């Protein structure tokens, strides 16, 4: 009964989404207040029914209802309750439902927090969101209904993919989706502005906090995914340039560019067309990511089972969304142009370069990700583009970007006079270089160009981002949340850069054959293999190795990596053991028995790897601080003012 209720709720939600988009868009077009008045209740109703559908599916998982096909395929009565909830989005159908729930939640938030925006504008925003929502619900109901019954019911479930039975991966999809789908709000704002034919600085101010919000979630989601891949996939890398990782990284790059270009649009009224385009691209890349993951066209860790019908649907939807938005852009954007100018040496041009470099980076990744598809489609053979390509081409736009971050933060609008910060910045660059040399020679005993450039850039950006807030605090001057947030986020960029440089330049990865009693030396640490024992988990049994890690004879840690066998899916799973530290991670994973009680063991030494994720967290936190700036709230109160004058006051 419960699954049918969920199915019905989803159908009702689809009807409400359709009403939301029709009344929103048509009501705004013909300026019918009574039609537009329907939109907010429709959003609320849609949310209630989507949440109900999602709740029904969750109930089916918690209640072990194996008469539902999707539950039978992805859960098991022995699966712990926490993972039974996580299993709801463990495969295609449920993750689509999650997508829809996240979109409904964003729509509800927009509807609730936009009371002071012009009626026609918000009706259009919600109308566009309704269209997207209706599209995804149609997709779900037509091709991937999670509520389909299984006749006869299964005795027990097939269990959740063991790789997904992990905390980080249980929370990774909801957070990542919140980011992905959040760009739909920026997209809807852009479409509404074009439909309205009005794009002013207050538009940028409405859009900014929403965009930053989505970006925060995307940042955390990507960092979580990277962390998961590091410890759970058993390979020990933090980024693989896997197509699905790229699929989440491209919207992030476009979204980062969008945040920066929105700053220019808000403060100076410039880059309007460009900002609209970026809003369209960020969401299009999110949709493309969904397409790449769902359709199974790419070879990837994350690929779900292939179903051509789904691929065709998502591709059609993608074409309609991007095509529609770009057509609208071509039609309306010329009217929205801006006239103000700026000098080459100004914050505007630094942000312009930031945008160009980020977009180039996204384009290069897109090229590498889609190239195999084109080649295959044209019958030119099956190829894959490996990490060396991405590593090489990604550095080209990123290195100048890092150099510009440090200076750009200190450039003022319109026309920058760097006079008084030029000297300290140059000095800091020298000091950073000396420190980088010192760190690499003293701590690691050797230096490489990559390490030197990365560490210098990282340290310099950290100095540059802290300089302004600290001097303001010392002089007891006020510091707006927006500026503070920007500084924190850029500080995070510095920390991240240091982490990447350290781990990429000095990591050591070694596969060795060890018998109990033998030991291996990696990165100055001794790993002594003590022996093996059997352990039992709730739904798996495991062989656990014990390694004593010592350094110059003193004990560091006992590491216990496992080789698990899950009872239902009978697939082996490597559970690496990691000891975490501020300066390095040590990583041990059990391979296979080599006969004669020898085992293959993968041992890794990963210096500074924690800073990769720590940097990402700082970026996200900086975003949070910036989005909490008072002016995003006061603008709502003073919205009645003519938009442009309101913007000029605070510019």
């Amino acid at each position, binding site marked *: 009964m419960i699954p049918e209720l969920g199915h019905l709720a989803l159908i009702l939600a689809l009807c409400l989404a359709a009403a939301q988009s029709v009344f929103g868009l048509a009501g705004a077009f013909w300026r019918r207040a009574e039609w537009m008045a329907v939109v907010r209740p429709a959003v609320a109703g849609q949310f209630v029914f989507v949440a109900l559908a999602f709740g029904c599916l969750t109930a089916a998982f918690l209640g072990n209802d194996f008469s539902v096909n999707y539950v039978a395929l992805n859960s098991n009565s022995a699966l712990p309750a926490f993972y039974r909830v996580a299993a709801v989005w463990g495969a295609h159908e449920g993750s689509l439902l999650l997508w829809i729930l996240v979109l409904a939640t964003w729509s509800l938030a927009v509807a609730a927090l936009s009371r002071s925006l012009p009626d026609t504008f918000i009706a259009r925003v919600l109308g566009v969101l309704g269209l997207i929502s209706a599209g995804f619900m149609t997709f779900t109901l037509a091709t991937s209904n999670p509520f389909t019954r299984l006749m006869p019911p299964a005795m027990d479930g097939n269990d959740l993919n063991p790789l997904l039975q992990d905390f980080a991966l249980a929370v990774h999809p909801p957070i990542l989706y919140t980011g992905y789908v959040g760009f739909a709000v920026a997209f809807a704002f852009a479409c509404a502005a074009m439909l309205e034919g009005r794009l002013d600085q207050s538009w940028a101010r409405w859009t900014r906090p929403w965009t930053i919000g989505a970006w925060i979630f995307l940042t955390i989601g990507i960092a979580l995914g990277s962390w998961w891949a590091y410890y759970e996939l058993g390979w020990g890398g933090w980024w693989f340039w896997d197509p699905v990782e790229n699929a989440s990284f491209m919207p992030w790059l476009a979204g980062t560019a969008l945040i920066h270009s929105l700053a220019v649009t808000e403060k100076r009224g410039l880059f309007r067309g460009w900002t609209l385009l970026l809003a369209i691209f960020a969401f299009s890349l999110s949709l493309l990511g969904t397409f790449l993951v769902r359709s199974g066209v790419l070879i990837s860790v994350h690929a779900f089972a292939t179903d051509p019908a789904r691929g065709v649907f998502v591709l059609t939807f993608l074409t309609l969304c991007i095509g529609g938005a770009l057509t609208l852009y071509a039609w309306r954007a010329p009217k929205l142009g801006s006239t103000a100018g700026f000098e080459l040496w100004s914050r505007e041009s630094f942000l312009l370069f930031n945008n160009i470099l980020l977009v180039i980076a996204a384009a290069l990744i897109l090229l590498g990700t889609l190239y195999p598809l084109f080649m295959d489609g044209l019958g030119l053979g099956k190829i894959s*583009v490996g990490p060396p*390509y991405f590593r090489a081409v990604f550095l080209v736009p990123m290195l100048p970007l890092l150099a510009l971050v440090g200076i750009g933060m200190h450039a003022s609008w319109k026309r920058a006079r760097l006079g008084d910060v030029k000297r300290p910045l140059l000095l800091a660059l020298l000091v950073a270089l000396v420190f980088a040399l010192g760190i690499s020679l003293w701590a690691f005993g050797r230096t490489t160009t990559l390490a030197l450039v990365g560490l210098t850039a990282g340290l310099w950006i950290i100095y540059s981002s802290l300089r302004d807030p600290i001097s303001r605090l010392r002089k007891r001057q006020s510091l707006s949340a927006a500026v503070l947030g920007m500084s924190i986020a850029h500080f995070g960029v510095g920390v991240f850069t240091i982490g990447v440089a350290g781990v990429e330049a000095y990591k050591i990865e070694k596969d060795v054959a060890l018998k109990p009693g033998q030991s291996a030396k990696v990165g100055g640490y001794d790993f002594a293999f003590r022996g093996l024992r059997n352990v039992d988990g709730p739904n798996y049994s495991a062989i656990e190795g014990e390694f004593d890690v010592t350094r110059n004879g003193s004990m560091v840690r006992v590491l216990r990596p496992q080789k698990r066998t899950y009872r239902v899916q009978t697939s082996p799973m490597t559970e690496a053991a990691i000891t975490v530290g501020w300066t390095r991670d040590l990583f041990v*994973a059990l391979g296979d028995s*080599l006969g004669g009680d020898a085992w*293959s063991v993968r041992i890794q030494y990963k210096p500074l790897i924690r800073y990769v994720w720590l940097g990402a967290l700082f970026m996200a936190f900086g975003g949070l601080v910036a989005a909490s700036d008072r002016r995003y709230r006061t603008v709502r109160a003073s919205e009645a003012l003519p938009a442009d004058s309101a913007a000029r006051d605070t510019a």
Partner: protein
Amino acid sequence: MTPRRKRMLVVLGVLAGVGIASVLVFRALSENMMLFYDPSQVVAGDAPRGRPFRIGGMVTKGSVTRDTGSLEIRFVVTDFKHSVPVTYTGVLPDLFGEGKGVVAHGRLTPNGAFAADEVLAKHDEKYMPPEVAKSLKGAPPQGST
């Protein structure tokens, strides 16, 4: 210099920059792209020698051997028409096994064997890399599970 000519120079400069950049990008792309071959193509001599590529297929049942205590492993990859012996040294992925799909990256040795430096296996029981599925398509299902 007239403004018109100045503009022309700027446009030419941008075009040249874009041109050089795209040449470099496509070179990076073609240097780093890995071609995929199935065992039949390798046996027929279509696969490049002296250049790394990827080979994919099924691990033949009973073909996995190693010397006791050694990290070096030998197995045979087949598409049920032809087979290629593969050697690899290191830790294998979790889902590597006889009768299962595999993709290996490496190069051909002069004696016709494939020396892999990376072995990828399917990441879950149901999933198979599309290229492996395609190269196995039409083959008799002997020995497959």
